[in-house]
């Protein structure tokens, strides 16, 4: 299998986004209708009757477009975040899910939905950060942080926050379990412009920041002492990665729940194509992560007339992938 050229991934998002607007679960509007609507928008030529026009606009603009944007944003965010965490921890086996961040952010978001005074994005961010911090300090020994202990600590922290999420749901939500499944399996079917508005700013800011400092991650990836020796303060640099990476992952969780395994599997796929140099992985993560999640979601929303949480698909794809990585990198386990 030949690996596509990098430029392929920079070109693909736009046509993919446009294509995604043309597909849906129903045949209530056809491609011709959409083209006619676009024609109407651009050259103001009335080519459809008013009712049809409104319908096309409602479906394309109010249903499909926010979902397509959200899928792309979240795909980019989770991939960039996963890639950044892997550089930060110098560990190709970590991700927002594995570090407990996703569970923490989901708990924070659920809390914010219950107590309306708490701002959604901020609360998700704070608990996401808290979860990563907890995982890190639980795993920290005098000898540093080993892969195994970090993954174990992440499992514990995830478990705690998932349990807390369940408590919140039990105390407040009459439909309890269904809602928990929605949080833990992630979904995009509730995508709306308000969700896009709530998450677009933190995600874009975080991604831009992580894109700017992409090369510094190469430096960080070589070790604390080496980083210091070449003139960067590793603690400071790590915070500069940690904060935006947490921000974009928790912003994603706050609007779509935990879309599992994206943050782990996608950065690996990117590195398989580009190699580890973050000057290449970050931009490709943005383009590829967004495109791939969008593709999975297109599949998700067209395969049946009912909704299957997208997290089920990503976890089913990513789970075996993680096992494969674990097997392949048993070196990491031994060495640490």
């Amino acid at each position, binding site marked *: 299998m030949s690996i596509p050229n990098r430029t392929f991934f920079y070109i693909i998002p736009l046509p993919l986004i446009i294509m995604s607007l043309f597909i*849906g*679960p*129903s*045949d*209530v509007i056809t491609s011709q209708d959409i083209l006619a609507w676009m024609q109407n928008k651009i050259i103001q030529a009335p080519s459809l009757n008013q009712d049809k026009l*409104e*319908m096309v606009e*409602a*479906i394309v603009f*109010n*249903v*499909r477009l926010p979902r397509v944007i959200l899928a792309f944003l979240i795909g980019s965010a989770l991939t960039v975040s996963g890639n950044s965490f892997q550089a930060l921890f110098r560990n190709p086996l970590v991700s927002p899910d594995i570090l407990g961040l996703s569970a923490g952010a989901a708990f924070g978001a659920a809390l914010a939905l219950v107590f309306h005074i708490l701002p959604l994005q901020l609360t998700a961010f704070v608990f996401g950060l808290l979860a990563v911090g907890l995982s890190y300090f639980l795993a920290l020994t005098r000898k540093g942080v080993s892969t195994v202990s970090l993954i174990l600590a992440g499992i514990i922290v995830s478990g705690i926050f998932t349990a807390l999420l369940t408590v919140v749901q039990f105390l407040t939500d*009459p*439909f*309890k*379990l*269904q*809602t928990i499944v929605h949080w833990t399996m992630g*979904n995009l*079917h*509730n995508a*709306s*412009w308000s969700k896009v508005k709530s998450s677009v700013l933190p995600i874009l800011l975080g991604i831009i920041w992580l894109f700017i400092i992409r090369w510094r991650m190469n430096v960080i990836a070589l070790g604390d002492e080496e980083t210091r020796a070449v003139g960067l303060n590793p603690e400071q640099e790590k915070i500069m990665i940690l904060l935006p990476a947490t921000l974009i992952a928790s912003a994603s969780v706050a609007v779509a729940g935990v879309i599992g395994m994206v943050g782990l599997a996608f950065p690996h796929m990117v590195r398989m194509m580009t190699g580890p140099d973050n000057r290449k992985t970050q931009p490709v993560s943005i383009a590829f992560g967004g495109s791939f999640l969008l593709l999975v979601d297109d599949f998700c*929303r067209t395969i049946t*007339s*009912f*909704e299957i949480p997208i997290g089920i698909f990503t976890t089913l794809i990513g789970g075996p992938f993680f096992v494969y990585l674990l097997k392949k990198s048993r070196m990491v386990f031994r060495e640490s």
Partner: protein
Amino acid sequence: MNKKIKSGIIFFLIMATNLSLSYSPVLASGKNDVPITVTDFRGKTLTFSKPAQRIVCLIESALSGIYMLGAEKQVVGISANIYQGNVYPYYAAMDQRIKNKTVPAPGNWDFVNIESVIALKPDVVIIWSKQTESIAALEERGLHVFGVFIEKKEDVYREIIELGKLTGKSQRAQELVEYTKKEIERFNKRVKAIPEEKRQRIYYMWAQGNLETSCGRSTVQDLIHLAGGKNVCGLIDNEHMVVNMEQIMAWNPDVIVMWYNEKKNPSDIINDEHWKLIRAVKERRVHEFPEIFLCDLWTLKFTYAVKMVAKWTYPELFRDIDLEREKKTMLRMLYGKKTGN
């Protein structure tokens, strides 16, 4: 941890001895009566020597059936959900014991405290037939379990008949079913005349989310059908599911029926940008059911739901129907004088 397990085992041993002691006299004394045989929704046949005197009922809808049968005195344990939420006032009005919260609640539709159930020494435990683990745990300890699962209106009738046998109120059960069938027929007769192409298309919305609905294999399907409408997703052979907004636009229902929702009212849907193109929203035909107790689809009270949907869907056809009066009559017929209001 270990200590807990140990004390648990000791407790169960004690309980087991208690049970075997308490069961033998019951079995012995039952020789004179005609044995009662009921079949639950798993297809399992249960045989009793006499009507169950100690019933633990962990399903609210089944409990309401027991109250309709007038067998509430035979209930010794109920679902914890009875004490929470909006059904409590109704039960409190019907039963002093519930009002004073003296009936133990050893579980709910989802969770069963096996130990507490055993401690109540029940003749039978009524729970959902899908709670297989709890059922196995209870049956392992020699308890009778009556599993319930409701998918269509016939299941509701069947449940009442079987509960009637179980409680020794078979005659009352027959009366209740007769009455309900008659009421359904009274409404269904009118809608039968509506030609297929004029049938209104209905989207049913659960309270969990705007996009959550029930499809072809559900009591909702029956409800809509009996009211003369067509469930927009009736062709999908599912119970519960989440649909796509776009799909709803494609279905473009004439009427939207909302299950009782604490967080949302029809006005929220009418004012929602996403829904504005749906015919039902344009024509302001979005309706919400009142409290669950009054129209629970898993009880005989679904007749009231049918009546409401029928009137909302065909206001002209049911112009003469006063829903308020229908409700009062129904409650009186089903519960007797127990519910004051």
